[in-house]
């Protein structure tokens, strides 16, 4: 979706302000939110792409005004309500009132903690040979799905070069919408800064994205 989360190339947000000796969490609740998202995901309530989509789908003004973990909280509430794990009336009441919906992997317990500390595997068996190879010139498609996608707007319509084939991987565009893993080839594609930002851009800058095959066409 063409959401406000797709920030690459936007102006006006000001300087990057690094906080010296930043703590891991700025308040206890931030850790609780992180843990709830990880636990409910591992219990099978949603996949990582769906959780990203719910954060992107927050109203733009809310997205911009909310801290990082506040966005995680709001996205998690919306997702769990939409998928029927909790009811909006329960969120309002602060207590469970409805029967639970079974989780794919069951209740998340201390036995499951180690599992969430290891990164998931997203590589999948290839359904077809790769269409592109390193060195190929490709154009990022001019596509604007209203649903989840990982093709940033600032690359669309622009020509780059395939640098590396990263293998075949779960396709976020369908996984996020619970329409299947639909594995696709994934490539690192490199763009010249001047291709993306015009002839006045810094000629020493190159930008790469990891692009799934359906995002690309020969150029």
């Amino acid at each position, binding site marked *: 979706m063409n959401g406000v989360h797709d920030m690459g190339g936007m102006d006006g947000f000001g300087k*990057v302000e690094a906080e010296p000796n930043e703590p891991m969490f700025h308040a206890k609740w931030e850790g609780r*939110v992180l843990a709830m998202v990880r636990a409910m995901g591992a219990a099978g309530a949603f996949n990582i792409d769906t959780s990203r989509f719910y954060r992107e789908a927050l109203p733009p003004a809310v997205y911009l005004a909310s801290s990082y973990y506040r966005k995680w909280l709001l996205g998690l509430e919306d997702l769990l309500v939409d998928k029927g794990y909790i009811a909006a009336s329960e*969120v309002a009441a602060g207590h469970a009132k409805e029967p639970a919906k079974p989780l794919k992997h069951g209740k998340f*317990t201390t036995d499951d903690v180690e599992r969430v500390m290891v990164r998931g595997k*997203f590589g999948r068996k290839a359904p077809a040979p790769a269409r592109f190879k390193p060195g190929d010139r490709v154009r990022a498609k001019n596509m604007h799905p209203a649903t989840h996608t990982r093709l940033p707007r600032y690359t669309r319509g622009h020509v780059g070069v395939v640098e590396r084939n990263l293998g075949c991987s*779960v396709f976020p565009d369908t996984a996020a919408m619970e329409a299947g893993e639909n594995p696709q080839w994934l490539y690192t594609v490199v763009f010249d800064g001047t291709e993306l930002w015009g002839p006045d851009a810094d000629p*020493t800058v190159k*930008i790469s994205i990891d692009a799934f095959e359906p995002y690309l066409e020969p150029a």
Partner: protein
Amino acid sequence: MTEHDHHHHHDDHSELSETELRVRALETILTEKGYVDPAALDAIIQAYETKIGPHNGAQVVAKAWSDPAFKRSLLEDATKAVATLGHVSRVGDHLVAVENTPGRHNMVVCTLCSCYPWEMLGLPPVWYKAAPYRSRAVKDPRGVLADFGVSLPRETEIRVWDSTAETRFLVLPMRPEGTDGWDEQQLAELVTRDSMIGTGFPKTPGAPS
């Protein structure tokens, strides 16, 4: 209200923010419905606080600086190379290491959300997840580096890696001068988090930290 009462109220969390109340409410619901054990949430937080952090990445970088064969395998397949180091082996898949050279500087961003190599660097700092960095890193990387007080020669190529899929990037910074004969532990202490994101350099031997 006496001072004691005031403290007491804080201890009871009676002045919780709207966000805190909402977080508590959600946790109560998830617990009452039998979805999560709150002790498991405690354990997740504890694991993040103790098991991951930039010390993992620093060990990998120091090893690459010391051992040319390890460096070659790291650049070829970082997931496999890191898995050979027992103490930082649980990174899972899809790690790519990118090498800084005199001619090329690498910098990592996630313009769409906040993708970051947690297992190598810990949880990302706020600036990495915030709009100023995410918006400008791809369009004006030299300007962003200036915000960090980092300046590169005019002719140095800057390569920005936008983490748009599940690949996670670790920058392998250049080994500082004046470290001949240093062992891995000494070298690891020079490696900063930002030097592995590409928004900083390693510390210089002898410089105040």
